[in-house]
């Protein structure tokens, strides 16, 4: 499974922080995001979140596979 993490407003919209998604051949970050937008239309704003794979910022074309953790990081506001 792929572990998906959502934070801040995204977490609030979804009502939880974590999802499990089935891996599929050739899936990349952008494909995974599109699946989320389709399956969870309440995740408005996810298109502007920065993706991270296994705790490192990742590109849209980064491949994701079984066992990976993919996080969608809304604009940050620490400090």
């Amino acid at each position: 499974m792929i572990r998906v993490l959502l934070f801040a407003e995204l977490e609030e919209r979804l009502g939880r922080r974590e999802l499990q998604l089935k891996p599929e051949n050739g899936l990349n970050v952008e494909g995974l995001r599109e699946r989320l937008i389709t399956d969870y239309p309440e995740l408005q704003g996810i298109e502007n979140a920065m993706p991270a794979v296994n705790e490192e910022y990742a590109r849209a074309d980064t491949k994701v596979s079984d066992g990976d953790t993919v996080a969608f990081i809304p604009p940050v506001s620490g400090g």
Partner: protein
Amino acid sequence: MTQSRFTITDEAVDVTAVIDKVTHRNAGAVNTFIGTVREMTKGKKTLYLKYDAYVPMAEKQLARIGDEIVRDFPDAEVAITHRIGELDISDIAVVIAVATPHRADAFEASRFAIERIKEIVPIWKKEHWEDGSSWIGDQRETTAYPGGSPEKGDIE
């Protein structure tokens, strides 16, 4: 094992403990930046804040900021602690401490660290005002997105 220099905590931050992590015999200057919860922002009164973080990644990103500083200032020692959870007015949200042999570098590196935190560290602030609450969606603290995330036009 020594306590990590790059930490996310849900407890009150002890400024002295952060400073102690960086002071050493050849530090002549320590610059400390402390971010606190401010009551008034643009005429709006904050009651309290909530910070949340993607903790393991946030700690990695804080450590990365430390690495970036040492790349530019090889003699610098850096420690950063950011608090999460519910914070009241005047509570400390973040403490950055940078020790260097000479003072100009300490100022520059500390300034770099706080700007970089607002760019790359996955921490989010939710403001609670008298009339509602909102996740703050812009890393420069200048714009709040009522919807919690920026609209297309806001980030180009």
